[in-house]
């Protein structure tokens, strides 16, 4: 059972008001329990929690580099094993560190099946450096390196499917979650840390600053992603899809239209063709995961 009273994330951190990552991390730490060591790659989370000497972490925590969190976690796990210690090793990193620059170390750690849990809080761009595109940025999102312009509709590529990649490594437990569904999120974290081997959770963590909405809308935006089928919460056990959250789907524009990163799809005029492409992504998700009620 998840102990919701666990509070291992200290006030005083420097995240933006309404930060999805901060909200998600508080939930992650409740799901993970007290006996945990956290590794964070470079990124927003690392920076807003640990300006020397003020740490927000009340659990042991380590940051080494941007791209090596999974390798650092591998070393910690090996050391703990050798010492006969019980702590769970948990990586909490952003999408850039996970799906792009850290992919080599991530793949290695999962191939070796270290007993670690890797959690990616996915805010779909490099937020710490100023909202640049990552491999997790969704199709057509305008970022500072995939800007919408007179001859661009923003990001040209679909999100990299890292959960599938890690499931293909033989991971015993891969899941997606959303901070807008806290009970599900915490339970999945608890399951992941208590499943032996390398487990992975990708958490949809809306970023008010990067996506362009007010900080009080973080949870609402997250819910819309689920309700439109653009984000699917599911679990894969030993590579087999076990559970996907079913929804009565809303049109994607309900999600897109509340975020400045998709504003170019609606202004100066509504771009039916592009919105249809994104609707097709949601439709494909719905078919793949069987989420339609």
């Amino acid at each position, binding site marked *: 059972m998840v102990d919701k009273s666990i509070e291992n994330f200290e006030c005083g951190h420097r995240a933006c008001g309404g930060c999805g990552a901060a909200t998600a991390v508080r939930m992650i730490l409740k799901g993970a329990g007290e006996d945990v060591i956290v590794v964070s790659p470079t990124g927003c989370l690392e920076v807003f929690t640990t300006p*020397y000497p003020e740490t927000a972490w009340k659990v042991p925590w380590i940051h080494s580099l941007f791209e090596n969190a999974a390798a650092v*976690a591998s070393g910690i796990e*090996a050391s703990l094993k*050798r010492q006969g210690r019980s702590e769970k090793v948990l990586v909490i990193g952003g999408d850039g560190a996970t799906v792009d620059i850290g992919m080599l170390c991530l793949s290695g750690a999962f191939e*070796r099946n270290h007993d670690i849990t890797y959690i990616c809080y996915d805010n779909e761009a490099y937020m710490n450096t100023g909202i640049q595109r990552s491999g997790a940025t969704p199709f057509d999102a305008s970022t500072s390196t995939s800007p919408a312009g007179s001859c661009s509709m923003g990001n040209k590529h679909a999100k990299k499917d890292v959960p599938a990649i890690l499931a293909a490594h033989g991971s015993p437990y891969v899941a997606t979650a959303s901070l807008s569904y806290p009970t599900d999120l915490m339970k999945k974290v608890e399951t992941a840390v208590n499943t032996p081997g390398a487990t992975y959770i990708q958490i949809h963590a809306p970023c008010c600053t990067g996506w362009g909405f007010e900080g009080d809308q973080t949870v609402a935006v997250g819910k819309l992603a689920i309700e439109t089928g653009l984000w699917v919460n599911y679990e894969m056990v030993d590579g087999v899809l076990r559970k996907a959250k079913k929804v009565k789907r809303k049109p994607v524009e309900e999600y897109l239209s509340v975020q400045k990163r998709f504003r170019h799809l609606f202004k100066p005029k509504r771009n039916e063709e592009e919105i249809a492409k994104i609707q097709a992504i949601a439709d494909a998700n719905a078919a793949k995961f069987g989420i339609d009620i």
Partner: protein
Amino acid sequence: MKEILEGSHAVAEAVRLCRPQVVSAYPITPQTHIVEALASMVADCKLDAEYICVESEFSALSACIGASTAGSRTYSATTSQGLALMYEVCFNAAGMRLPIVMTIANRAMSAPLSIWNDQQDSISLRDSGWIQLYAEDNQEALDLHLLAYRVCEDHDILLPAFVCFDGFILSHTYEPVDMPTQEEVDAYLPAFNPYQRLDAKDPISFGMYATPDYYMEFRYENQRAMLRAKEAIVRYGTLFKEQFGRDYSGLIEGYELEDAEIALVAMGSICGTVKDAIDEMRKDGIKVGLLKIRCFRPFPDEEIAAALAHVKTVAILDKNVSLGSKGAVGLEIKDALYGSSIAVYDYILGLGGRDIRKKDIRAITKLAEQGSGDMFYGLREELL
């Protein structure tokens, strides 16, 4: 006990005797025989360690950072391109003050690709905050691993170290070595006692970032630890001598240097050839000696200035080049001797495995005598 071993196997045995708890390495020529030997030891329960077969050198050292921070003695080995891939991890490990020991089987840097020896790889990491020790022969390579762990893990030091030995020239050469027993090594090297560690019972945040209000002081502390390492190497080198009889109490070593007029300065296996060449030149009445640098980082500038104070000419044998400038050792020596009247010449040689023979040492000595230096030595002019 005397054994005849390949250099890599002598190093692997030394590492085993140091009881690392986590070994993390990626294979690369000419380092492979070391890590293969260690993997075999783990497979045969002769080494009680976790051996992590990582997917790159970058991860090899990153895993060492994790394991070291979690409280284990860690070891890795690499060379050349592998070390270059570790570049940012090297700086990170030193800044985090982790006493990781890593063997470097020195090899040239690409391009062009070369698997053969020079010292460009480790020299290029000279600013990374790692102690750098260079071995002349396999006995020294073996012994320096014990010394490195002893120095690095001192809570007054807490720095990582490279133990460098020349790829192929030493790593793949069989030499007799005196192998200490486990009891002897245990008596010299205490069990790993981490200064601080990741522990749920006493949560500490590692690897925080430093604003401009703090960063410079952290770098200064790294520098001070590096300078303290000089004294620690002397102290633990002396302790080593008392226990094992082999003398590593000096950061540098002289050979026929006391009355020399010309001093050759070198690091690594070339020192053996230089000594033989000196013996011959001495017979011809040439007053030449060797100053061997065992410890390149921290750099023993004062010790070198004192040891060379009486000579007229210095010739540095640099198996590396800082392109656009000079050899790295040459630059350091010129700095150490600044203001003296000693003539100092730098010779870039032996790059990418180009053989250095006694006659080359003799030729360089002659060039230095003639006042000709700061050059690549031994170029094939017909190719240029």
